[in-house]
């Protein structure tokens, strides 16, 4: 036993409580501690992941009460994969923001606490096996996200944050309603238990709870009519937080939604529904991105569109489809984070973050521009970079299920995507500079973080086998509902004092 999954939650919480105390003693520790924690957790998640793929799911029981009664954490190949991804992204974002903007000490304390909690909350959403506990983690994530969105005082960040909060409150309302409905019928809150007993629920309860879950979690997963908050929040949050939103938080939201639809209930028609809303999300988001004047807003819309694509892939519902969806999520996390991180340096000098102000900036920021270009090319899905393999697996999955229309739609939307990314690239590289702008050179740690992401893109691009094994294990574990229920409910040792 290397460590237990509960450490993913407990250690960051401990660290978050410690940070203010340590700050009185040694100021630098405030910045260092989160990194150490994340590094340890990264090591832990990688070792656990290796173990889980070979020996099967780890179910961690809290407080010694067996699953239906106590809260449990499930570290399956799927959740493990997402946890590893989130912690990896978190670590990279920490590297990036280690010296981000010479914020003063008080702000740094808050920034790092909130960042750590954002990551922990998302990891908790993925790991937990209890719906109310998931709600609590969603709230942890959301509150950190609200605060981080409003972190900069100079911009319209408070406006974005307030919109986010409004919609987020609606989300928690729907979640609580859904939990109440389920509890009133089954008297249990454990996901595996609910899944095992779902047939006992009256159908109208089941469907209403499902609808509330879809609405509540759809807000976190940014599906179309529910994602009004997303572009604002992405664009107004500090660069690394935008990366964290698209690399960590959305992933957790999509996971939660998929878990509810795939595992919790056995309602027919969910797959088709996922495909439809996924496609709508994809199309509307990409259409909105084309004429966007703000770089980060454009990236935000693109991010929403990509999540739509992920949802479509989940909706295909076969193992290949889920594999493709997970692969898309993985790639999107890496690539979009890179775009946000490098993009925020490209528009650093522009108060409105306008695309038109990146003209010819490649001459001043060659490495950042190169990484941005790499990210753009990869996300459009050009081989031999990472994005291609996920798009390819998505297409074959769709072709296998005879969803030709989806292939056509997805590819035409990719064309739109290509247009707006290349417009930006052309501006960066070929447009004459309008005036002498004071650009901000990236710091060493920012370069390191972006370089790591770029390296990951290349590794996955040239050697996709490095991740596909894990993805296959994960997709099998999502679809094998019976095994999930069995794994959780058979963790029967009733530990008592």
């Amino acid at each position, binding site marked *: 036993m290397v460590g237990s999954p509960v450490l993913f*939650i407990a250690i960051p919480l401990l660290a978050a409580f410690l940070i203010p105390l340590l700050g009185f003693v040694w100021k630098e520790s405030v910045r260092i501690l989160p990194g150490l924690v994340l590094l340890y957790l990264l090591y832990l998640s990688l070792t656990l992941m290796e173990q889980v793929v070979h020996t099967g799911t780890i179910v961690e029981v809290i*407080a010694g009460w067996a699953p239906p009664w106590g809260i449990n954490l499930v570290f399956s190949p799927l959740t493990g994969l997402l946890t590893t991804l989130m912690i990896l992204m978190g670590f990279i974002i920490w590297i990036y923001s280690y010296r981000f903007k010479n914020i003063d000490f008080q702000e740094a304390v808050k920034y790092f606490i909130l960042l750590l909690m954002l990551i922990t909350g998302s990891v908790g959403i993925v790991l937990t096996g209890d719906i109310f506990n998931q709600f609590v983690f969603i709230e942890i994530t959301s509150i950190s996200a609200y605060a981080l969105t409003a972190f900069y005082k100079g911009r319209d960040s408070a406006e974005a944050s307030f919109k986010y909060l409004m919609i987020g409150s609606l989300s928690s309302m729907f979640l609580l309603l859904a939990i109440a409905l389920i509890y009133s019928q089954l*008297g249990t809150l454990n996901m595996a238990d609910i899944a095992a007993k779902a047939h006992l629920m009256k159908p109208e309860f089941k469907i209403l709870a499902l609808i509330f879950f879809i609405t509540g979690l759809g807000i976190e997963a940014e599906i179309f009519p529910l994602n009004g908050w997303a572009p604002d929040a992405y664009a107004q949050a500090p660069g690394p937080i935008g990366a964290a939103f698209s690399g960590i938080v959305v992933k957790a939201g999509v996971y939660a939604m998929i878990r509810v639809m795939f595992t919790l209930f056995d309602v027919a028609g969910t797959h088709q529904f996922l495909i439809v809303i996924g496609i709508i999300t994809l199309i509307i988001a990409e259409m909105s991105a084309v004429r966007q004047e703000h770089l980060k807003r454009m990236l935000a819309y693109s991010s929403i569109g990509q999540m739509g694509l992920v949802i479509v892939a989940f909706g295909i519902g076969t193992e290949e489809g889920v594999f493709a969806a997970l692969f898309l999520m993985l790639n999107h996390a890496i690539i979009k984070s890179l775009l946000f991180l490098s993009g925020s340096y490209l528009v650093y000098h522009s108060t409105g973050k306008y695309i038109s102000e990146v003209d010819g900036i490649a001459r001043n920021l060659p490495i950042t521009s190169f990484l941005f270009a790499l990210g753009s090319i990869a996300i459009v899905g050009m081989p031999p970079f990472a994005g291609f393999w996920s798009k390819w697996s998505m297409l074959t999955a769709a072709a296998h299920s005879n969803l030709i229309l989806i292939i056509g739609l997805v590819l035409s939307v990719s064309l739109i995507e290509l247009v707006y990314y290349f417009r930006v690239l052309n501006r960066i590289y070929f447009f004459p500079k309008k005036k002498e702008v004071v650009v901000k050179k990236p710091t060493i740690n920012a370069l390191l973080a972006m370089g790591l992401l770029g390296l990951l893109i290349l590794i996955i691009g040239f050697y996709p086998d490095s991740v596909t094994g894990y993805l296959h294990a994960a997709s099998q574990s999502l679809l094998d509902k019976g095994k999930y229920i069995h794994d959780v409910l058979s963790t029967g040792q009733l530990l008592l004092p």
Partner: protein
Amino acid sequence: MKKILVLSLLAVFGVYLAEVLFKIDFGHQFFLNGVKDFYLTASPDKLKVANVVTSIVVNFRGFDTLGEVTVLFLATTAMSSILYKGRHKLGERAVLFSSSRIVMTGSKLLFPAIILLGVYVFVHGHLTPGGGFQGGVIIATGFLLMLLSYQDYQVSHVVLSVVESLAGITFASIGLIGLLNGGTFLHNFLHTGVLNNLLSGGVIPIIYIAVGFKVGAELTGLIYTALNEKD
């Protein structure tokens, strides 16, 4: 127009929700093998905790509480981050109402009583209604009273954050000790004692006291931050 739209939306939503809710047999439990039966027996039997809600909050679903404490902690952090303007200027607190001498004296007298009540509530959390949250909130109201009646009343930020952090660390550490000791996080590793004794329930009262301190400190800090906010 917008009102009509919203009203019709709400009507549909309300009708569907009410329709389903009315199928719940109010006042009767109708699910079999729900988790509550287990809680209701195990709490007095195994944990020796009289207040079942407390044992659920602190032990069976202790993880939720850890998250909840974190939410409050985050709310405080978030609020001070959102309202942060640079260096705090002390003594420029918003004046809600000017307080008379009577009020001042009254508050001064009431303050220790309120704090004592709060402490009582969370120390007896496993026996009587109430617990860490309630006690913490009561403590915070005590401070609120003082802050409102004395304009120059200051609460040390350092003390607040030290108390808050220490309490949080205690909670998380007890969980981790449980992990080391009994194999699971938040494992109740102390002797549970006898039902309805003050010293019963193993780690539950300790955790609840930590929660009490934490909530009290957090809410006080939260109000303090809000009160110090002035255009």
